[in-house]
């Protein structure tokens, strides 16, 4: 039996297929404006990539910010539950998750079965999310995927005091005007964002081992800043961005249809 998970995030859409408890395939595409279209596109492209048809899929679970728009899914489940299931599937020992996505950041506590025990989530504010890093990358004229690497070269990280994305951006612009080193500013940005996420982790008294998921896990500078704040190493797999979609496929396999 093959099961599918579709994760419609604010920036990227992800899909995953699992068969007999093994991961078959995954895919990531940009979400765009239309959630349902993104869902259809990501699902069909993945099926094509895997050489499968829709009839081959026993059940589909949708998740993420746009989960409710996916009308062909058998069930919509929150990304918190799906990241929990996905992290447990990929690494059964995981007890904590830090998920930093495009517009949300979350800290999740798992029990030994991968069930969510507690969670905390950012408010309606972009501080400590992927969007925050995107805004800063633009202000600093650095490619988003280079930000991590550049930040790790800092010799004296700057201090960003504003927690609001808009204020922090103007703070960064004054730093640019003062000709502070780009590496240092970026390291400061990572630390400011990590500080916000660490508050969520402290709220739920997170336990290790902790997996970092979501698109921002690809940013090595942010991950290092988080490890520093949490005083713990983070497990970051190559499928960090797809963890929610994988979890959705895992939960689809457990549906009683």
């Amino acid at each position, binding site marked *: 039996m093959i099961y599918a998970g579709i994760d419609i995030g604010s920036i990227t859409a992800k899909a995953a297929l699992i068969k007999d408890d093994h991961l078959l395939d995954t895919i990531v595409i940009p979400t765009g404006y239309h959630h349902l279209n993104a869902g259809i596109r990501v699902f069909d492209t993945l099926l094509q990539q895997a050489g499968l048809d829709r009839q081959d899929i026993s059940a589909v679970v949708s998740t993420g*910010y746009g989960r409710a728009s996916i009308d062909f899914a058998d069930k919509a489940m*929150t990304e*918190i*539950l799906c990241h929990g299931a996905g992290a447990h599937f990929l690494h059964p020992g995981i007890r904590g998750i830090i998920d930093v996505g495009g517009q*949300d950041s979350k800290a999740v506590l798992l029990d030994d079965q991968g*069930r*969510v025990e507690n969670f905390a*989530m950012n408010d*309606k504010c972009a501080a400590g999310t992927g969007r925050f890093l995107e805004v800063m990358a633009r202000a600093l004229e650095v490619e988003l995927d280079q930000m991590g690497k550049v930040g790790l070269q800092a010799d004296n990280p700057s201090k960003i005091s504003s927690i609001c994305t808009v204020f922090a951006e103007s703070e960064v612009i004054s730093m640019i005007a003062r000709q502070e080193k780009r590496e240092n500013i970026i390291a400061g940005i990572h630390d400011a964002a990590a500080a916000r996420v660490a508050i969520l982790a402290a709220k739920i008294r997170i336990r290790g081992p902790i997996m970092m998921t979501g698109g921002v896990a690809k940013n090595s500078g942010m991950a290092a800043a988080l490890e520093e704040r949490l005083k713990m190493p983070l497990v970051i797999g190559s499928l960090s961005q797809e963890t929610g979609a994988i979890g959705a496929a895992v939960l689809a396999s457990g549906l009683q249809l």
Partner: protein
Amino acid sequence: MKEIDRFHAAVNDSRATALNIHRAGRKTIGYLCSYAPEEIIHAAGFHPMRLFSSKHEIILAENHLQSYCCSLVRGILEDSLAGRLDFLDGTVFPHTCDSMQRLSDIWRMNGKYRFFVDLVLPAKLNTKSAAIYMEKVLARFKEDLEAASGKKITDTDLSDAIVLCNRIRKHLFFVYEWNFRHPGVIRGADLYALVKGAMIMDKKEAADLLAGVVSSLEQSAPPAGKAKRLILSGSVCDTPDIFDAVEKAGGAIVGDDLCTGRRWFDGLVAEDAPPLSGIAQRYGNRMTCPAKHAGLTARADTLVSLVREHKADGVAFLLLKFCDPHAFDYPYLKQALDKQGIKSMAFEMDDQQSSHGQFSTRMETFIHML
């Protein structure tokens, strides 16, 4: 139930409701929290109407109250400054939280309404001396109302008002109990419209309509549901979408300690006691809000017993952002629930809340955890 439409209509247009009541001969006195003694206002020949924010954008109130004041207080001030409450003849401010007190000052200084009273209630309501003091506060309030109306309030006026308000309380209590026994028999949005409507519409009309709701419910077929049973805890929840989101996520609201819910109609005024002592006593016995004190663990004890009595699966704290009294109480309440193995989660919200995506994600996950 056709009666529910009348409650929704009153809730959706409190101004029209007040103007109709005015035409029928009663002027309206607004109040902002459930410590306002409606019985005395009604006995004086006025219509007591609870004020809620109409959720317009905050522009004028920005000059008086900073953004760290709760959205309820800011929203109501905005309505007043913008002239949307010009149907009021007066207002009464019971002494509760700091923001309410500041609002009261600003209100008086920008005075638009003829009648204004601060009710300086005791901080503890359940001691012997507090009851004596409270009765004096109520007696003074009665005199203020008499001066405003030019008419003496007799004990019979008070007794009639007490009986009327008790009728509303008994009916609402029945609706709550029925809903707790048969979760889903009434939508959350309807349930809270009944309570809110009863705070807004004419008291007699509310009591009569609620009697109709009670008899319709008694004849209704209880739905078979397997929703997770939730208790809501907090201050004001004036966003009906929230109740829909709870139900959509697989939850059923089986009880609450909200100021816009059970706390407002909790307990009856003894009808055989001297009227003012009866009213004072009800406040002493009623479930308290965190701006008052009834013992170090009183609120936690009430909450735990609400959960037990209503066989609830969990508690959702609905906390209005920047509401200090509730925010201070939350950690100890959560700890008390944890100790009893009762799952809970805090949901911070705005009175003007319009984005429900994150709320739904949190609520769905929480209900899944139960």
